[in-house]
């Protein structure tokens, strides 16, 4: 049931934010089934947006040394490296494949894995790759809780931080249910993907989508992307990939659907995404009510303490 309340319930964010000349809502559809993990998106984003380097981090867990979306990585290519077949065995539950978690495959060597150990010790493994990005939620918690108005909704329905206003209070960082927005060290302000707001205004494609060699990252009007994504999932299911699923496409989910959504090949938590994110402001009216009750109790206790007698 659509709800007119902008903190939860489907609606079109740009007109709701007061844009009288709102453009069609633009977004990303990231199809991880064709991602080859080249990280061109990470690099293109850094180049265009002049995002500083994160330093040399060797995380010692996989070929992913970016690790997460941070203030200095507005795109992050996750590498899920697991010694198990990409497709679940016949009859297996969809969620069962995720039970063991990612595993260490050893340092990459000069020879193919398993060459020296005999055929018996070899295991099949899968590489799931996923280029993660700010979700540009329909009900964006970061935007709702920002006390300076630094975060704003653009005419394209995306969410952008004004870097000359942000005073680094950090509230948006704790409010984001996806763990996207982050404080930059040595700078103090919060930073995240702008969906290349400057390029959009000039009618260009965002840098990451422009650089993606496999069209894993697709940019366009959100309605069109959702249609395209549904079609792609149907195709994959037909071709015998039953685990393909969309994430963040549903306008009735906890954040009103994402402006950037994904086609995944396993459960969201395998990729480090929350399985059921909810906009933090959904419970806010009840929170204020509880605070009001507590405040009344406090006032009543203080009054009672003073009228209760003289001893």
């Amino acid at each position, binding site marked *: 049931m659509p709800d007119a309340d902008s903190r939860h319930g489907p609606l079109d964010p740009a007109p709701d934010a007061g844009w009288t000349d709102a453009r069609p809502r633009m977004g990303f559809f990231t199809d991880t089934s064709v991602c080859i993990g080249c990280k061109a998106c990470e690099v293109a984003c850094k180049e265009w947006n002049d995002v500083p380097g994160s330093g040399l981090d060797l995380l010692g867990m996989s070929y992913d040394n970016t690790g997460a979306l941070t203030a200095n990585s507005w795109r992050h290519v996750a590498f899920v490296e697991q010694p198990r077949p990409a497709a679940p065995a016949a009859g297996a539950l969809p969620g069962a494949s995720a039970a063991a978690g990612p595993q260490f495959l050893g340092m990459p060597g000069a020879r193919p894995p398993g060459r020296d150990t005999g055929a018996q010790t070899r295991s099949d493994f899968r590489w799931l790759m996923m280029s993660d990005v700010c979700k540009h939620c329909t009900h964006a918690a970061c935007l709702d809780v920002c006390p300076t108005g630094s975060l704003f909704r653009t005419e394209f329905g995306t969410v952008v931080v004004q870097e000359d206003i942000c005073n680094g209070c950090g509230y948006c960082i704790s409010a984001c249910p996806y763990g996207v927005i982050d404080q930059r060290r040595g700078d103090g302000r919060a930073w995240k993907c702008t969906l290349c707001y400057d390029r959009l205004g000039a009618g260009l494609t965002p840098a990451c989508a422009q650089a993606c060699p496999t069209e894993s990252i697709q940019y366009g009007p959100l309605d069109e992307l959702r249609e395209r994504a549904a079609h792609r999932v149907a195709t994959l299911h037909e071709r015998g990939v039953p685990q393909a699923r969309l994430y963040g496409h549903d306008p009735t989910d906890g954040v009103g659907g994402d402006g950037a959504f994904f086609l995944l090949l396993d459960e969201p938590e395998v990729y480090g995404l929350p399985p059921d994110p909810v906009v933090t402001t959904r419970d806010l009216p009840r929170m204020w009510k509880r605070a009001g009750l507590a405040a009344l109790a406090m006032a009543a206790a*203080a009054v009672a303490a003073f009228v209760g007698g003289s001893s």
Partner: protein
Amino acid sequence: MSAPHRPVGDRFRRYRTGRGGGEQLTVPPAEFTSYYGRPVLKPPVWKWDIAAYLFTGGLAAGSSLLAAGGQLTGRPALRRAGRVTSLAAVTASAYFLVNDLGRPARFHHMLRVAKPTSPMSVGTWILTVFGPAAGVAAVAEAAPWLPERGALGVGRRLLPGVGRAAGLVAAATAPALATYTGVLLADTAVPSWHEAYPELPAIFAGSALASGAGVGLLAAPCAQAGPARRMAVAGAALELWGAHRVETRLGLLSEPYRTGAPGRLLRAGRTLTAAGVLGALAGRRSRLLSGLSGAALLAASVATRFGIFHGGVASARDPKYTVVPQRARVDRRAAQG
């Protein structure tokens, strides 16, 4: 072939199992999947300043209520102690809040907007009303030191009245100042804060009352400290009830409040609160015992605030607390069709 590797994610996990003095966990270790055990959420970037602010803000609110009560019922010692403490605490609050910003020089950008969806914005405006009122009320206490003649003499005559009005404004704002911080923490994606939203304002209200009462017990002679004792009992009851609820009601999300450093802080807070209340009730005629119990109540408030703060931070650092409850929710929905 070397020995089989443990999943690398183990290195990133921060399970607290096996620590915390052999305490038995009632929640079994949860099976879940994550991306190499890395956190899903960004842990709060707030430093200890914010935990300290939670205490000083509560203390300012509690002591301004004490001051207003003292003012209205003719207990000058309570009034004076409450007003002075309130000003000191609210000044410290402002320092902690500004100091915790990534760009402290831009703190005034908070005053660009007023947003009910942002508890931090609401809190900024509450402080903007409360701070000057508490300040004027405290400054009015200096009126008797002013000379009787000249320009300052006018101040000497006018200040007490202005101070009385300001003290009442501060007291009227105080309950909001003490309880909005509960919403401030709850309105985040931090699992153990968000799910505790019904209790956090009650804990903070109780803790604020108890710390305000602590100031009264420390500063006022026994003849005037009666209301402070009753305030201590009410505050402690509210605080203990709320803390007990968040430590037991939230299932897996109660775990961060019971284990590790936050667990130790909350246990210390509980012990100190109980000791403070008992001391306050037993020490009706003893200035020393009253003072000690006042100090215990103040220390309890510090411990409780830091415990709640760090419990939430711990819940954001471990992906278990994000993934397991959400996965359970998804599975429940799927089971219902």
